[in-house]
């Protein structure tokens, strides 16, 4: 009896929670699940088609919100129902099993390397579809109205060198810095070499700010970049793939960063920064520089003061044996279509909606990103990044390969953190990495 009573009471309580919460959400939700409403707002669906789109964005992110709007507009216009699934970054783990199992997924998006390399086998060849013209391209083929450099990169990394993804939101992985701090410190020109960087650090330190920071998510990229600047991209990739750190360049890298630690140029919190703690240090204006992607201004938009002045420059060159500053990781997110889709044209139409015209502009605006439209303006925060992007001659893959293996990544994170907190010296770092 008692058991039944308590179960009943629990049930009633649960129901009351549900009822009180149900009401408010229904009246307040704006962006969630546009797919449910789309079939009700159109008169008669054209052919009862349903597209399923898995996106890497979260519902709360600006990109997620704009995409939801665009998808709803598209549905209204064409009568095609679109199921939009906000996976967040977990798409990196969820997508493949779902595709393998034959779940209906027509469109998905993610970073350009991931889409084309990891998911290459699932992509539909887009060469033909992209040369057609669409309502928003004013009679021109699609590929002629969008950012050519990006399309070229997408073609380059595509399976068999074929265009299999449509890029958007281009990014460059560069040093993001706080212009106000630079001005205050009296730095007049962007550092192009390691020595110039050290000089700039000294000036920043003298006005009481911390020059540099990093956190656990981007340590491998920092090491990869610095190593590539020291011994060149090929050697770096070899080290990353073979996990063999015997190269003398490793010791040089260690010495450089040991110096950064000893001179106090790197944030004392850096070794313990669990992402996104490093970004917050920039937002609070206690740190001046951070090697990150041009998405950073968007990610800390709500934490920075309204008139925060962003600047960017390419990671400085370190040694003549290494790469010059025209070697950078540039890329973008991109849309791709499942090669098993039943509606390739409709799916591509949706992609066109997202990469041209009104929604392309809006997507860029809301997320402090770059529009795909040809010759469009980069946002103010990223003007200097445009130069880096356009001057890049050779492309690094993500973190110059240092994140390809979980083992290598973990090893770097541990030892580099010890190095920049003074617990390991340069020699110690080199030794530890050799294991």
């Amino acid at each position, binding site marked *: *009896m*008692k*058991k039944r009573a*308590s*179960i009943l*009471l*629990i*049930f009633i*309580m*649960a129901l009351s*929670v*549900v009822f009180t*919460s*149900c009401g*408010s*959400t229904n009246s*307040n*939700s*704006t*962006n*969630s*699940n546009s797919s449910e409403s789309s079939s009700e707002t159109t008169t008669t669906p054209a052919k009862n088609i349903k597209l399923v789109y898995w996106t890497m964005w*979260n*519902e*709360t*992110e*600006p990109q997620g919100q704009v995409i939801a709007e665009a998808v709803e507009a598209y549905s209204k216009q064409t009568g095609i129902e679109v199921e939009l*699934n*906000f*996976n*967040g*970054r*977990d798409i990196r783990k*969820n997508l493949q*099993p*779902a595709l*393998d*199992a*034959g*779940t209906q997924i027509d469109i998905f998006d993610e970073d350009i390397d991931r889409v084309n390399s990891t998911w290459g086998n699932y992509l539909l060849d887009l060469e033909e579809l992209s040369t057609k013209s669409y309502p928003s391209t004013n009679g021109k083929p699609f590929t002629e109205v969008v950012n050519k450099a990006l399309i070229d990169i997408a073609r380059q990394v595509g399976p068999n060198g074929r265009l299999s993804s449509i890029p958007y939101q281009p990014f460059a992985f560069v040093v993001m810095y706080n212009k106000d701090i630079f001005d205050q410190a009296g730095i007049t020109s962007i550092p192009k070499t390691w020595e110039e960087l050290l000089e700039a650090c000294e000036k920043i330190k003298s006005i009481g700010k911390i020059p540099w920071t990093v956190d656990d998510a981007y340590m491998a990229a920092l090491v990869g970049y610095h190593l590539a600047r020291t011994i060149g991209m090929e050697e770096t990739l070899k080290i990353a793939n073979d996990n063999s750190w015997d190269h003398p360049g490793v010791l040089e890298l260690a010495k450089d960063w040991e110096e950064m630690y000893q001179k106090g140029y790197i944030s004392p919190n850096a070794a313990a920064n669990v*992402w*996104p703690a490093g*970004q*917050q240090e920039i*937002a*609070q204006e206690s740190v001046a520089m951070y090697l990150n992607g041009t998405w950073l201004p968007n*990610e*800390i*938009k*709500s*934490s920075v003061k309204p008139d925060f002045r962003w600047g960017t420059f390419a990671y400085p060159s370190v040694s003549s044996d290494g790469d010059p500053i025209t070697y950078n990781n540039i890329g973008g997110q991109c849309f791709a279509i499942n090669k098993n889709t039943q509606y390739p044209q409709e799916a591509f139409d949706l992609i066109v909606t997202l990469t041209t015209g009104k929604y392309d502009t809006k997507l860029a605006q809301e997320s402090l990103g770059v529009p795909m439209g040809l010759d469009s303006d980069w946002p103010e925060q990223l003007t200097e990044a445009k130069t880096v992007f356009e001057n890049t001659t050779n492309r690094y893959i993500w973190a110059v390969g240092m994140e390809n293996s979980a083992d290598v990544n973990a090893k770097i994170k541990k030892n580099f953190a010890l190095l920049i907190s003074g617990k390991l010296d340069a020699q110690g770092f080199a030794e530890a990495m050799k294991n």
Partner: protein
Amino acid sequence: MVKSVTGGTKTYKKHLKLAPGYIIVSIWVIFTFILIGWVILASFSTTREIFDGQMLKFSTGFHFENYVKAWKTNKVSVYFLNSVLYTIVSCSIIVCIAAPASYVLARFRFKGNNLLQNMFVSALGIPAIMIIMPIFSVVSKLELTNNRWLLIFLYICINVPFTTFFLHPFFKNLPKSFEEAAAIDGCSPIKTFWVIMLPLVQPGIITVTIFNFITIWNEYFMALIFANDNKLRPVAVGLYSMVQSMRYTGDWAGMFAAVVIVFLPTFILYIFLSEKIIAGVTGGAIKG
């Protein structure tokens, strides 16, 4: 259980002797409240203030909009509805399956009894991921992924061995006389179980149900794999995705608001349920 009775001045002295005990548990509890209290305060703050360490001053006032935003932009009520559905249905059915099994294993001798007992216990030792991979494979082929009934089915099956294991001592400790008396009265064995024996192990059932409830409520991994769709997510996965998305938008205050929104009803349910544990354990465990 016979409670000892001490009266009058003895009580005062007794409590004094227990002072070190009071101090120890109080420190622990205070720490817990600081932890949770900070989060609640942070949820009314802004991200800048949190990271500046200026939170406690509340210089810009209380930001209730964090809650509004967290509620509107995340489908919190859906997550709750899902969790409630999953836990209540699963917990009820688990007991229906496990109690009878536990009963016969504890009180009847038959061939294979020990084997079955060891079998159930061994299930406890099998880590979830051993099971998840093949099940995921089968389920994918049957295209049953993102199906809430499948998830419930899995929750039930996974918790049956533990529940059986847990109820064993409770059944075992019941005196044989009850069954004999019931048999003499002409009660069938099945009826004996449902009408007499089961109610007698109420404290055990209540306790294990609460454990199961909390396990399923907070369950994360299986839901992540089998019910990741926005509409099917339970609270734990939903909270995780909310936290992740707040990280990408740098909205820490909003994230804490989301944490509190998820935590409060859990907390209230818990307070309510814990009274039931106590009532059950002290009320039902009368010996002899």
